[in-house]
């Protein structure tokens, strides 16, 4: 494998890596025909990010002869190579990534001004392919905005805020902080930001919905998008389906996939008018179970004959959540009692969604909450 990035793209590569470091501890690297894929996943499997740098991103792009080369390494060691972004700008002319198969080392060489060469030999581990299954095209709702809008929006929430709730109607978007279960709900400060659809470059909402996801992991993407000036697209569906945020230009594509909290009960039971917005039809508020398990994204490996890890999804008791977060109306309309919280996991396929690499998957007898990549549509069978 031999890839060379030059000029400003070295900084872009560095920023991508820093961005991924906000997600997980390890960097998964996989050079494929379509480009160099850099991926990361968080420990609870609720956030996944992938940067695909196309061959055009590089001055030279040569995939390894062994077509299925994949590796992972601690992301901190890669970050150390691209430590100071400003000095990268000033002094690095070229960055070369090579695979040294005999020594099992990934060699990253920075060619700097005045003939200075900085060579880093990073050890790596072989690993399974890391690929979350998601399908942007099937998402009911698509928003696109300039990064400045997203950054300004997020500014209203404290940096420590973990989870945020996004609700959409036909012409409005609401972003609210999501209050942790164990915090006293009557003491927490609630913040809500309401944006008009006009502020978005693209606003296609076919299903009014409300999703909750982790904001922290998103900040890496926001930083990347803001510095690159690329608009951010957001694809989402109903609660439980992952939300996908992506930026793309002609030579790179970044996708951040975050699991969203799900709920079991039929949304119809929750539809009530929100006293705060009598004019707009308020999408149903999710009754949240904040157990982090509910954010699980399942992982699957290619080495094993079938999905290696399908988490069971026991109903979570909800007797700790009898009141809604911000509305003051009752929930008594639910005749079946408090909703069962069940997490929906985002299924990780072992294959990239390209026909050439499809493998047959055996359907498990266990409950599959999200389909595998065979039928490129994400359907929930719960």
């Amino acid at each position, binding site marked *: 494998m031999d890839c060379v990035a030059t000029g400003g793209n070295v900084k872009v590569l560095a920023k991508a890596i820093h961005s991924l470091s906000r997600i997980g501890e390890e960097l998964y690297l996989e050079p494929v025909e379509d480009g160099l894929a850099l991926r990361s996943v968080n420990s609870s499997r609720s956030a996944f990010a992938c940067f695909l740098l196309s061959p055009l991103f590089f001055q030279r792009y040569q995939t390894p002869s062994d077509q299925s080369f994949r590796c992972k390494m601690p992301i901190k060691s890669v970050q150390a190579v691209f430590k100071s972004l400003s000095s990268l700008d000033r002094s690095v002319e070229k960055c070369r990534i090579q695979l040294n198969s005999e020594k099992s080392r990934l060699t990253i060489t920075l060619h700097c001004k005045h003939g200075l060469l900085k060579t880093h030999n990073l050890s790596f581990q072989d690993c399974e392919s890391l690929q979350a299954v998601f399908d942007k095209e099937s998402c009911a709702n698509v928003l696109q905005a300039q990064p400045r809008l997203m950054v300004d929006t997020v500014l209203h929430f404290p940096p420590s805020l973990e989870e945020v709730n996004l609700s959409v109607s036909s012409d409005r978007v609401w972003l609210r902080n999501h209050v942790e279960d164990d915090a006293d709900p009557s003491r*927490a*400060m609630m*913040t*809500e930001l*309401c944006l008009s659809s*006009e*502020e978005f470059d693209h606003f296609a909402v076919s299903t009014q919905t409300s999703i909750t996801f982790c904001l922290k992991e998103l900040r890496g993407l926001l930083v990347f998008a803001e510095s690159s000036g690329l608009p951010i697209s957001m694809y989402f569906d109903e609660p439980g389906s992952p939300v996908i945020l992506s930026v793309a230009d002609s030579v790179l594509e970044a996708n951040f996939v975050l699991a969203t909290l799900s709920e079991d009960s039929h949304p119809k039971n929750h539809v009530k008018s929100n006293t705060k917005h009598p004019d707009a039809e308020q999408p149903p508020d999710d009754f949240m179970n904040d157990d982090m398990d509910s954010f699980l994204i399942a992982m699957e490996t290619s080495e094993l004959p079938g999905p290696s890890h399908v988490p069971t999804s026991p109903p979570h008791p909800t007797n700790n959540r009898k009141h809604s977060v911000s509305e003051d109306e009752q929930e008594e309309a639910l005749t079946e009692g408090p909703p069962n919280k069940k997490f929906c996991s985002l299924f990780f396929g072992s294959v990239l969604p390209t026909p050439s690499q499809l493998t047959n998957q055996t359907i498990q007898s266990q409950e599959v909450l999200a389909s595998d990549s065979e039928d490129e549509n994400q359907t929930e069978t719960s």
Partner: protein
Amino acid sequence: MKFRAKIIDVGCLNHFTRVVNTVSKLTKACVLRLTCDHLYFVLSGKVATGGVSMWCELSQVNFFDEFQLEGVSADANEIFLEVAPENLSRALKTAQNAKSVKIKLTKKNCPCLTLAAELPSLSSVSRVVTHDIPVDVIPRRLWHDFREPQMPDFDVSIYLPPLKTMKSVVDRMKNLSNYLVIEANLNGEMNLKIETDLVSVTTHFKELGNPPWGDDGSPSASASHRDTELMAQTRVDIRKLQQFLTGQQVNPSRAMCNIVHKRILHLIFLHEDVSLQYFIPAVM
């Protein structure tokens, strides 16, 4: 009980925010007293807070464009709320460029102060950010705990040295000792002293000037006959003094302190629209 207010002037908003920031640096929880003419942030001295108390008074008309209040009852036309000023501070922080900020008393899961800011946006429709800050309504029978503090019968009243200087002196002294003695006389002289086993440090300030308390103040009768050279002093917890000097964003036009010998240090910041009083009890 009803309360609605609106700020539309950016300068007023900034100023109000700075006052709230100052209060939030001094205490985690305080009482917000609302009357038709004033807002007060009150902290009544308790053992839990180390005995410090605070009284911050704002004249409502200098900040709000609209202000409507309906108190607990016709004869008690006031509202007392217990609030965490830090929440207010946070809510105001990102609203500094708002076209308008509305504050009102609402009831969500619990009584709240709802702050709604209309922000400039890229489209014709403004962005609206709403913060619901939970508050506790204080019942009328407890109102007497939060009365305006009496002006203490002080021995010496003196203007403070430039706050920046005073703060940097106190900051450095804090590294050496937990307690600081502040003494001053009617000759415009003030000393800040610390004393440990190893070292004692005194910083002398001169020509500070003494406020002329006339009939409106209540200096003790003996003060006017007091020997101008005689120092009145109190020993206070240095962290409390530092906290007061560090957090302040009021930028007072007048800053002074009153010393009740060996009893209380009473700090006063005066500004056109706002006054802030802070009482630090003496420690032995």
